[in-house]
């Protein structure tokens, strides 16, 4: 703890505390976790940029079917490589204290594979594919499933979910906030 403390100035810690949902201690703890991913690199430069493969060694992200998407959404260079600040941002959004709306915002971006600001049928298909892993749904089943999701969520019938529609669905789910959470 003492070592990582020396890597940050008080001002930086204050900044992090103001800009994330963490306290200073949690920020330091997050840095420990970050450092554990690549001790040498981070020991050298506290805000080193780690490649996505390193970030995915974090256990919760590694087994997550959307691990690479998460990295990409939070990476400031949009290629999945994360600096400590990106990592901290990620952990703060996944923490208990982050409000549901912020979580929904990021979940939307994670599910929006093609980045067109709408979750369309192709996005939905990818989400389902990743969720069921090695199992397989037949084409008809997949179509039916997507149809059903759109029926439920697509309020204005334009064949894709806008953010407002997505948030509406998330708002109605009591389990989202508890599921979309990673303990630091």
């Amino acid at each position, binding site marked *: 703890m003492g070592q990582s403390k020396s890597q940050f100035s008080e001002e930086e810690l204050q900044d992090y*505390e103001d*800009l994330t949902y963490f306290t200073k201690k949690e920020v330091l703890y997050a840095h420990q976790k970050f450092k554990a991913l690549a001790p040498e690199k981070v020991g050298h430069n506290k805000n080193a940029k780690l490649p996505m493969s390193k970030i995915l060694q974090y256990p919760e992200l590694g087994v997550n079917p959307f691990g690479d998407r998460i990295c990409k959404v939070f990476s*400031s260079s949009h290629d999945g490589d994360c600096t400590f600040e990106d990592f901290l941002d990620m952990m703060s959004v996944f923490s208990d204290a982050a409000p549901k709306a912020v979580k929904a915002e990021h979940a939307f971006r994670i599910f929006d594979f093609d980045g067109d600001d709408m979750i369309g049928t192709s996005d939905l298909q990818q989400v389902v594919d990743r969720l069921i892993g090695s199992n397989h749904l037949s084409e008809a*089943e997949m179509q039916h499933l997507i149809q059903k999701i759109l029926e439920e969520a697509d309020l204005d019938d334009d064949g894709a979910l806008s953010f407002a529609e997505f948030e509406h669905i998330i708002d109605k789910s009591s389990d989202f906030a508890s599921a979309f959470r990673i303990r630091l």
Partner: protein
Amino acid sequence: MEMGDIQLRRYSRPIFNVDNPNYGNQSNYNPKNKRATRNQDNLVYGDVVTDFVPDIQPSYLNYCHRTTSVHRNVFKLGDEPCNFRNVPFSLEHRKKWLFCSGYNTQKRSLQECADDIATCMELDDVLMNNSHESELLRREALRDMPQSLTVKRIIKKNLSFSVNKRTKEKPIGFFKGLQYTTSMKLSKVHTSLKSFAYSFELWYSSLKEIEGHFGSGVATYFKYFRWMFIMNCLIMLVALVFVVIPQLLYENFEVTTSTSKNLWFNWNIKPKTKNNATFQISDLFTGEGYFEDTVLFYGHYTNESVNLISTQWYSVPYAYFFTSVFIYVASFIVFSLSMAKSYRRSFIETQDGLKNNFAHKVFCGWDYSVATEKAANIKVSSLYTELKELLSESFQIVKHVPFLQQFYTVVLQFVCNVIVIFLLGGVGYMLWLLLNENTAHLSQSSSSIGVIIAVVINIIMLLFPLVFGFIVRYEDYKHPRAALYVTLLRTFLLKVVLVGTFLGFWLKQSTKQKCWETAIGQHIFRLILFDFFFSIVLTSVVEAVCYSIYTKLWRGIGAPTFDIARYTLQLLYNQTLFWVGFYFSPLLAVVVVIKLWLSWYIRRTCTLKFCKPYSKSWKAAQTQTLFLILSFLSLLLVIITLGYIVVDVKSSACGPMRNYTYMYELILKGIFQLEQHNVFWRILMYFTKPGAVALMLLAMCVVVYYLRAKAIAQKGIVDILRDMLVLEAKDKEFLLRTFSKVADQCNLPNEHKVYTMYENVTDIWSAEKCHYRNGNGNDCGSSTETSTTAEVDELQATEQSLQLLKENKPPKKHR
């Protein structure tokens, strides 16, 4: 509000969509722009609706601001943490700002992006004030902004720079400055408290480990466990400080008042009053013998006051009574609040959400806290099977269940319920008989009876849930969750019946005993102790045996699963016993805390070592709410029972209340020194008259009726709004179609502004109209003729919608 302008922008997004086939490709669009449109959509929608339905304005605006989550705190008019002000509605600034804080465009550097956002934010006066509120607002707006932390830091630096500059230009007054600094300090204290709490977060790593292995479902049990543990710890502290320690002081020290100069150092140790029973190991399990006359039980406490400092007196009876009352009231408040919160969150707010099975499964299906390969695989396969089930359910055409079968099911369920009621009644009666029999025969040495009864109750508690599980399998409930809830409820009833019978019996016996309060304390003590052996130790041993059979001998048995419902009910039972017993034995809190502490480690190790995760997904929030409701109910029952005891059961000749016939007289006689003619007494009497009570009940009924009517009306509004949304979408789609048709015909360039297009369109439209009219009138034999009628219809509709657009189009003419 310049509605027309916005309206046009609103339509501009899909029009590009039609015009530009490459729409959606990263290379070809500017996400920033689109994000802005998205946010504007919400704003526009708010405007449109508020124009249509002026009555619903506030609630609707609220909604639309919540949906612009990026800056929800700035826009939000009510609810949640930041409701300290109303925001003036200057759309222009906001639009710009929203526009800037969308996605990062890849071409620009982070610095540029941050600068842009900062410039936009600086335009907002509300944010840039030098006051605590806008400081908080700034912080929240920044924190909730979907930007990377690096960008946020730059923005923050820029903003604080410009705020400082502003302050220098226009310094704030002394009073305001004082207010500002104090509130800043307060929020600093708050964060430091938070970080203090964080460093003491109990069993953090265990929780993380369990979550990693089993997901958040099992973790809810452990979190509930931890919550109970912390609450009991607090109760223990209060009880120790206010009741037990004064009593110990009273017993062991006395103040010699003769040398009254030095108040603190003249405590003398009293000669020990001999405890005439010798300590035996078995006393640990029965709570009798040696323990009977210790601070563990009610009977031992004195009815006198402790003389702590020569002139100050500390009355043990008052302390005893009021500490207990405080603890019950405090836990009642805590439980009812958390129940209400949880209920609101998981049932009321998400009421319409229950229909969205598929969307929930897909969007909320993955449990992000899962951290091991094994758990992830289980999660994947369970998600797969659940999706499959949902699909096959939806493929099936809803079969009409024949009337006879429906009737059969109803009768079956009815019979099963009757059987269960009889079983419960039978168990209660048997217990009563058993208690009667034993006390009649062996009224002298009661220690062995107590143990036997505790064991019997625990065995019943172990076996009956199995029987209920067996019964519910034949009841043919449509949904497995219904079956789970029914079994839970029955098990809960069983526990209520058992504890109720037990308590009722001993209360009935109260007149026959020397000190019935201590006796009840002892019985509860034994129950709690044996519950530990049965529900924690025995269950763990069974799990371990099952697991070793599974790994070494026979795979068919299957690894033991972690049964969240059963374990949570056990926890609840333990807590209920504690609540019943606490009044008669303040040190029970210590016993329960030790018990819970041990059980945590046993449970955790067993779970991690032997159990396999629950293979079905667990609706954590809702079941959690159910458990909270059950705990609340049991606490309520306990409080009612204790109220009855205090008011209507004669107290015995031991313990702190031995001077009073009924315990409640302590308050009346002691505190208020009330007599019949006191004004306060008369007012109290007046309010407890049946007429007054009836009046109050009536008033409450009226309020409930009013609230209910309001809720129904709100629901109606939601339906109307939803219909309007669909209609709007249809309108939009239709307009787009006609637009694109016209645009195709005149080959407009891709990124043409809508309003110029509008002008072109009107020209073309009038030309076309002429053409069609001419065409219709003149050469009927042409090839266009077949499609004419349809197209004319469509074009007429287009004309209408264009008219609609025209009304809104020129921003300056409007209003």
